[in-house]
């Protein structure tokens, strides 16, 4: 078999320019796939990381029916204290979870004594919240405290809103909110910083301490809007979510219906469509690679057979089996694909290395948020790109090779 490959390589080198051009075309295709997968994967990771580590966390648990009305921040669909206790017990037992943080989400009126506006707020336990969204501290500008997001009696305001009302860290503001019974309450808070706005749900919310939120809403027993949950291993998210769903399913309300609903991050943000679009584009570029390889190798092999009809006749006349003649041509396609794929993989990985050295930044979203990308590619992606090239190269060689093997020696020897 080694001799078949040796002869195949010699035959490929016979038409150096043609082999080089075709090989380069395939190489460019492989490089394009690797660089695109590297860049898009990095961009995807940056978006997902930004969304999950800044606002949503990996998954969230709500009272059944809450998510359908989440835009209204309904106070009548909160988790009662008892249900939250049950939920906490289940979450605490699960080894796959790193942390969870209860939130009270509500809308309020904010006044700086001169102007009034609406604001969406999250009542959180600062330490627990930081454990589920570790990028939260990084979003706080002009923070009042070092290493601590906020204390009781303080509020973190959304950046856009604070800028619009000319509110600075240290200023005092008033928050006025209706509780679920419709009664109104107001409290003064000190601004502990402004929170950088982000794309997606919750990206323009303010924060206050969960106990302050309960007090403002006059909750006798604290009720919870949502519980943000962070897993230990993001790659295991689907399995963890499935396990938690099974644990939560048996817990029912007075009507005998499930008490909880659980959603993973991708079910909570429209930006998941961007991620899916990236996946579709990756698939698209792989299809283009397949087409490039198929057309290139098919063309080269057809030319090769056409130009060597007499030679095939000579080999057949000498007693070379048709199967071996076929193997000779398939080996040529394989070798062309192999060398091109390996070269493409090397150049592609080299390009990613260079991009990492120089740095790549992409502005995205309404706020033109800049993502610093560190493009890397999983070994499986490199291997799959190479396997695609090899598979398609063999496939493209089969027809011309079969044609060569089927040639009648007497006809082939007469060929001019």
């Amino acid at each position, binding site marked *: 078999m080694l*001799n*078949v490959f040796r*002869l195949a390589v*010699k*035959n490929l*080198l*016979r038409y150096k320019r043609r082999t080089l051009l075709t090989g380069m075309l395939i190489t460019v295709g492989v490089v394009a796939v690797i660089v695109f997968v590297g860049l898009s994967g990095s961009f995807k990771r940056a978006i997902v990381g930004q969304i999950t580590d800044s606002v949503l966390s990996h998954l969230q648990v709500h009272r059944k029916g809450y998510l359908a009305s989440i835009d209204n921040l309904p106070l009548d669909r909160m988790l009662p204290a008892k249900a939250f206790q049950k939920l906490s017990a289940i979450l605490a037992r699960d080894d796959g979870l790193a942390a969870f943080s209860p939130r009270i989400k509500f809308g309020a009126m904010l006044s700086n004594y001169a102007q009034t506006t609406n604001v969406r707020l999250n009542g959180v336990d600062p330490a627990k919240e930081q454990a589920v969204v570790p990028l939260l501290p990084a979003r706080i500008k002009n923070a009042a405290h070092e290493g601590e997001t906020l204390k009781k009696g303080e509020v973190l305001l959304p950046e856009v809103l604070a800028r619009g009302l000319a509110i600075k860290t240290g200023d005092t503001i008033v928050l006025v909110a209706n509780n679920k019974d419709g009664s109104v309450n107001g409290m003064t808070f000190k601004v502990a910083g402004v929170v950088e706005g982000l794309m997606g749900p919750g990206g323009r919310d303010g924060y206050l301490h969960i106990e302050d939120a309960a007090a403002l809403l006059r909750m006798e027993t604290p009720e919870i809007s949502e519980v943000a949950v962070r897993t230990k291993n993001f790659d295991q998210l689907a399995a963890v979510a499935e396990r938690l769903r099974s644990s939560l399913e048996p817990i029912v309300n007075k009507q005998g219906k499930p008490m909880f609903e659980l959603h993973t991050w991708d079910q909570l943000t429209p930006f998941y469509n961007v991620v899916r679009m990236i996946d579709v584009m990756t698939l698209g570029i792989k299809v283009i690679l397949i087409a490039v390889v198929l057309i290139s190798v098919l063309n080269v092999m057809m030319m090769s057979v056409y130009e060597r009809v*007499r*030679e095939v006749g*000579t*080999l*057949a*006349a*000498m*007693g*070379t*089996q*048709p199967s*071996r003649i076929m193997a000779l041509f398939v080996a040529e396609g394989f070798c062309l694909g192999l060398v091109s794929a390996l070269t493409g993989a090397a150049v592609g990985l080299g390009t990613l290395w260079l991009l990492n050295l120089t740095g790549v930044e992409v502005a995205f979203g309404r706020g033109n948020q800049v993502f610093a990308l560190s493009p890397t590619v999983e070994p499986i992606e490199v291997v799959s790109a190479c396997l695609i090239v090899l598979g398609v190269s063999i496939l493209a060689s089969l027809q011309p090779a079969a044609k060569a093997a089927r040639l009648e*020696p*007497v006809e082939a*020897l007469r060929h001019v």
Partner: protein
Amino acid sequence: MGTATDIVTFEDVSKAYRMGEVDVKALSHVSLRIPRGAFTALVGPSGSGKTTALNLIGCLDRPSEGEVFVAGRAIGPMGRRESAIFRGEHLGFVFQDFNLLPVLTVYENVEYPLLMIRNMPKTQRQPAVQRVLAAVGMEDQAGKYPGQLSGGQKQRVAIARALVGNPALVLADEPTANLDGATAQKVVELMKRMRDEFGTTFVFSTHDPRIMDQAEVTVHLEDGRLSDGSAAGKEAGHA
């Protein structure tokens, strides 16, 4: 059917081709025998059926009627794979245009039938190749490629390639047609010497009178039939 003393036997062989709308009868009721070890020439003008007869002997084609026996085997019933195996084991070919593989060196061209057809191990292959290269006087050119050789040298390599597997029969289609007179003479002398050295039967087609005079057995073909001019003493035995 063929006898032990005959390497080739034609029994009332006819071969017809269809060329477009026309049927062409290349051979018509030919019966002949070629003895083992004979230096045999198929002679006749263009279109007389020489190449068709060589193709039949070489198991590259099948008769339309009658039967051809080569080394005791009837070629008609052979399948494609079987005839390829038979050619690889029993026959050697020398072509008018040499048909050497341009990407292989002289050594590799001669080695090809042993390596790619017979899968012979290197320990057996190497002495066999060196022996035939020495026999045709090309051992010092072993590392050269066909493009670096003269026509006569190429044909010597082609003869070495045909002989390396120690076949019973070597078929040569107009082996001197692309060579000058002196070189053609040397190639014929070489083939004769190889016949003496290796005991191989040579059957070659030619219409070069200088070459056909060298043959020990001459088969005259004309319009697909054995011609009346097949002279005694230098004839193939008519079956």
